[in-house]
């Protein structure tokens, strides 16, 4: 499982017009789409805006030339969290309706209401649209670019430096863990090996966790010392090169933001 960490960014290294787009623009468009779908007041109009925004997402995904299976796999990974909340809504009343019509009765007096199902499906639309834009962003933008984009957009350097180091050290620790695991395998240890006493296995796993703790602490100390040696202080931060936006990117950004805002207003104002 930990090996998959190295491939989490595999798709972000692709080549397409969407991949090449400045990360700031992708970040802001994703944010705008999420704000639009979340801010639209509760009504069945959410379906319409949802369809419009999902079409925009589908267009951008097609332009990224990533296979649809990548999107579906990632969606399937996140969906359970939302599905639980959404599914639960079908069985309870909510403050948006006064009258509830029962469409099904289950044992133990549990009832499914037509209005609750509607509430749940509107929630699902909001959820899927938001998640889709996040998946688009993360599948076409490298982590490092995302941090730089946030820095260029004015995220304080305390955050960008910390985030940058976090990304770097996730990989360092994944590697450390991998090596420890290999060393244990070499000496025939398998935590699931039933021929070894349960307590013994538990102890060894505990020692491993402890070792990783000590080593990460020591690594932190070493890194901090070397940072101080290179003049780290209160004014330090992540080096972010200035990167002006190209005309095409600005035009694309203005058009897409305009489209999102306009379609939200049109959907909201229509009778």
């Amino acid at each position, binding site marked *: 499982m930990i*090996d998959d960490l*190295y*491939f989490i960014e*595999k798709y972000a290294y692709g080549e397409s017009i969407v991949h090449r787009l400045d990360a700031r623009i992708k970040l802001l468009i994703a944010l705008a789409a999420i704000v639009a779908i979340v801010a639209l007041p509760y009504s069945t109009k959410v379906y319409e805006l949802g369809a419009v925004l999902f079409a925009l997402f589908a267009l951008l995904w097609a332009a990224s030339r990533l296979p649809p299976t990548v999107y579906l796999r990632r969606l399937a990974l996140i969906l359970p969290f939302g599905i639980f909340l959404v599914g639960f809504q079908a069985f309870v009343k909510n403050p948006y309706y006064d009258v509830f019509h029962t469409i099904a009765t289950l044992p133990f007096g549990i009832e499914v209401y037509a209005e609750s199902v509607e509430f749940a499906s509107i929630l699902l639309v909001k959820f899927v649209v938001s998640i889709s834009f996040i998946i688009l962003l993360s599948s076409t933008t490298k982590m490092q670019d995302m941090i730089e984009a946030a820095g260029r957009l004015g995220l304080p350097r305390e955050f960008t430096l910390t985030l940058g180091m976090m990304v770097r050290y996730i990989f360092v620790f994944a590697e*450390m863990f991998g*090596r*420890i695991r*290999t*060393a244990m*395998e*070499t*000496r*025939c*240890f398998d935590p699931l*090996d039933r*021929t*070894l006493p349960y307590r*013994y296995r538990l102890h*060894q796993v505990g*020692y*491993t966790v*402890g*070792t990783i703790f*000590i*080593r990460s602490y*020591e690594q932190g100390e070493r890194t901090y010392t070397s940072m101080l040696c290179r003049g780290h202080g209160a004014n330090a931060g992540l080096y972010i090169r200035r990167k002006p936006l190209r005309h095409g990117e600005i035009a694309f950004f203005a058009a897409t933001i305009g489209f999102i805002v306009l379609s939200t207003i049109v959907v909201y104002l229509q009778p």
Partner: protein
Amino acid sequence: MHLLETRDLTHIYRGNVHALSGVNFVAERKSRIAVIGPNGAGKSTLFKHFNGILKPTSGEVLIRGEPITKENLREVRKFVGIVFQNPDDQIFSPTVEQDIAFGPTNLGLDEETVAHRVEEALHLLGLEELRGRVPHHLSGGEKKRVAIAGILAMEPQVLVLDEPTAGLDPLGVADLVAFVNRLPDEYGMTVIFSTHHLDLVAEMADYIYVMDHGRIVASGTVEEVFDRPELLARTRLDVPPIPKLIRSLQENGVAIDTAYTYERAKKAFLDAYTRRE
């Protein structure tokens, strides 16, 4: 039947990284084998195939003539012990003694046998004084010895050492060389190691494999490999100082015998001087 053999071993890491291509490697009983090559040549990847940590993308690894399978994996790991470069990856028990006992315990040996093997390993590496010590209070050299003891306690027939001299002080290196050289004769073990300390190769090995870009580009006895300076230069390696110096002297007309180890070189120089008088 060879003790350990790879046939056309190829390994491709995920992301299409070709780490090994068509490697044919053979190790016999009681042999001392050095694997040399630049960083990223595939030495560690090759070693990880010897005990089934990595599985070949194609080709095969034969241990005593048999391929590694799920059923014999435990036997294979008992037979081939690998000491990794960084001892910190290997030592995680609270004390030195417990760490050395880790392997034998996993093999399902009874308490008495485990205790006996721990004593043997502690004694063999001169670690008796440190048995109760906490690993993170050990020096680099001590950690290395604990790591080796942890593997030897499993009584392998083949000992694989990945960069055993990295980070050791000169005396530590000398001790290690002397210790490793005892293993084939006294215990009938085969030692396979990788190193960038080329001057040690002649002291520690009878046979050399040279690796570059995931391939074995040359192999042979110490004499055969160190007689090809152009090959070593091409693979970012170099001829060690002793044979290099002797070769220069020979090229300048000095009558001196070729030698690769310190002792042999000393004798060659003394002989050459004696002849002059």
